[in-house]
């Protein structure tokens, strides 16, 4: 009388459809997911609760609950270290790296997905393989290169935000090109041709047809680029100075020789995390869709 699908959706203890999971499976799932949630949330809880504690609470034995709730750490973080400046630096660096990286990747992916040309294979293989190289391999040479460019041309790359932007935008580039190529390939060529008929050139077709059609993929790539730049530590620790320091290095400033202001560290960590986590969670569906179209094939 009723189809298996209709029966599966009916709750309760009645006979379940063959596709509905059995009881043991549901219990395993419940236990597994609860444990995993605990593991995932533990540091998040500590971050949040410790950021609302007075210093005594985080210096002595650990307490699950604050002895008194205080927002002082959130006020103090801005004075203990110049957090606002680091924040601004990170925003400038990660923002510029994201915009440039997406733009460069869009052009490159368009070329790879739409044209046949000599050296295409070499290009994709080279770009992809740079992703597997250890960052430490580039660190010192890049540092020397930037210093030398500065000495000979006067363009200050070492210690500047520009140098960092340049470095970061190549970090996300291989992945972005790879993913966007897959995404662009899924946009039917008939659309390009229709644009040509309407009088667009190749760039017109790219920006009026392909880019809008591949927008979820582009958003996913932008999120990835931003997160990569916002979270990078190695190059930021070597390539910045007092004025250009980013959050990833600046947060170490809450540890003085005698004391670590753990409540402030936690408050600052939370403050610098909120923008990325919020953005990521808002756009995560795009990331899954982008991975499905671009990479999972």
């Amino acid at each position: 009388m009723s189809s298996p699908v209709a029966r599966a959706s009916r709750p309760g203890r009645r006979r379940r459809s063959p596709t509905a999971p059995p009881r043991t499976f549901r219990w395993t799932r419940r236990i597994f997911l609860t444990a995993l949630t605990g593991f995932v949330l533990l540091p998040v809880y500590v971050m949040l609760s410790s950021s609302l504690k007075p210093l005594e609470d985080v210096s002595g034995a650990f307490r699950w609950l604050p002895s008194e709730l205080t927002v002082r750490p959130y006020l103090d973080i801005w004075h203990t270290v110049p957090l606002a400046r680091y924040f601004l630096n990170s925003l400038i660096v990660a923002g510029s790296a994201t915009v440039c990286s997406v733009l460069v990747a869009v052009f490159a992916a368009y070329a790879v997905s739409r044209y046949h040309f000599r050296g295409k294979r070499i290009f994709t293989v080279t770009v992809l393989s740079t992703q597997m190289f250890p960052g430490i391999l580039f660190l010192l040479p890049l540092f020397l290169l930037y210093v030398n460019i500065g000495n000979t041309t006067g363009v200050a790359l070492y210690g500047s935000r520009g140098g960092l932007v340049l470095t970061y935008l190549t970090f996300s580039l291989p992945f972005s090109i790879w993913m966007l190529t897959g995404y662009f390939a899924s946009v039917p060529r008939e659309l390009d041709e229709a644009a040509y008929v309407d009088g667009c050139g190749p760039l017109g077709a790219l920006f009026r047809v392909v880019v809008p059609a591949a927008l979820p993929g582009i958003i996913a790539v932008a999120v990835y680029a931003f997160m990569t730049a916002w979270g990078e530590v190695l190059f930021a620790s070597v390539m910045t100075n007092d004025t250009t320091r980013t959050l990833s290095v600046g947060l170490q400033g809450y540890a003085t020789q005698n004391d670590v202001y753990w409540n402030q560290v936690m408050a600052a960590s939370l403050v610098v995390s909120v923008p990325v986590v919020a953005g990521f969670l808002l756009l995560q569906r795009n990331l899954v869709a982008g991975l499905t179209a671009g990479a999972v094939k």
Partner: protein
Amino acid sequence: MRGRTRLRRVGLPYLLLLPALLLELLVHLVPMVIGIVMSFKELTQLQIAHWGAAPWKALGNYRVTVDFDAPAGATLLHSFAVTCAFSVLTVGLCWVLGTAAAIFLQENFRGRGLLRALFLTPYALPVYAAVITWAFLFQRDNGLVNHVLHDQLGLTGDRPFWLLGDNSFVALLVVSVWKTWPFAFLVVMAALQSIPKDLYEAAALDGAGIVRQIRRITLPSLRPINQVLLLVLFLWSFNDFNTPYVLFGKAAPEAADLLSIHIYQSSFVTWNFGTGSAMSVLLLLFLLVVTAGYLLATSRGRKSADV
């Protein structure tokens, strides 16, 4: 006119690639060449300002690096073993957690969307913020881990150190798995969406239970993506610098001395840039060999599976 459009058609792809090419050249390829040249030179902090003119050392740096009887080589070998163990464990645990979570969240139930967002949070958090928090959890006197293990459960005799000594390997592994497994989850979840639903329905009608469905449908469908996923996870964990650096600082404890931090230390702390470069080149060669072998093995497997 005709010639011009022809030229544009032939030249356009290169023009579009030009920015990407220039950037790759400046930030990856040229530095790589410099790095390789440096590994053949005598480079300490004295020569570094004029590194181009530094004395040639031929294979000297490599000889020092791979002389496993001498202290420098012995610590490198140890660090290599630590890194291998760390990577294999990280990849394995991340894959198991990510795949299990993705399978459990495949079917719709109440709270699924929330859990999905929650599970992705460690991946979204900036690495340093997450790892600093873990460093706090692992503090000996005021951290949560010792509070639970020692004060509340009484499992440990004395409050152990987690960021010093042998325990540091465990601490590093936990942090690394915590922040990496969501990526495996994300990728597997995306891959699961492309498996047709009627496959499961047909299997269920044939009497296959959930375990058999997972073994016969889900896991085989994941094979192609697993090959890429495992390789990416391996390369990431093998090259990871951020986690040990934020957790331990510039010098990691011996038990958790990953190669990247080991090389960083020999380059920027003890100022042996030449041997540091030689180590990075060796690391690169190792990764190239492993990757090539892996790709070859998996593509051969794929071909034989097709036949």
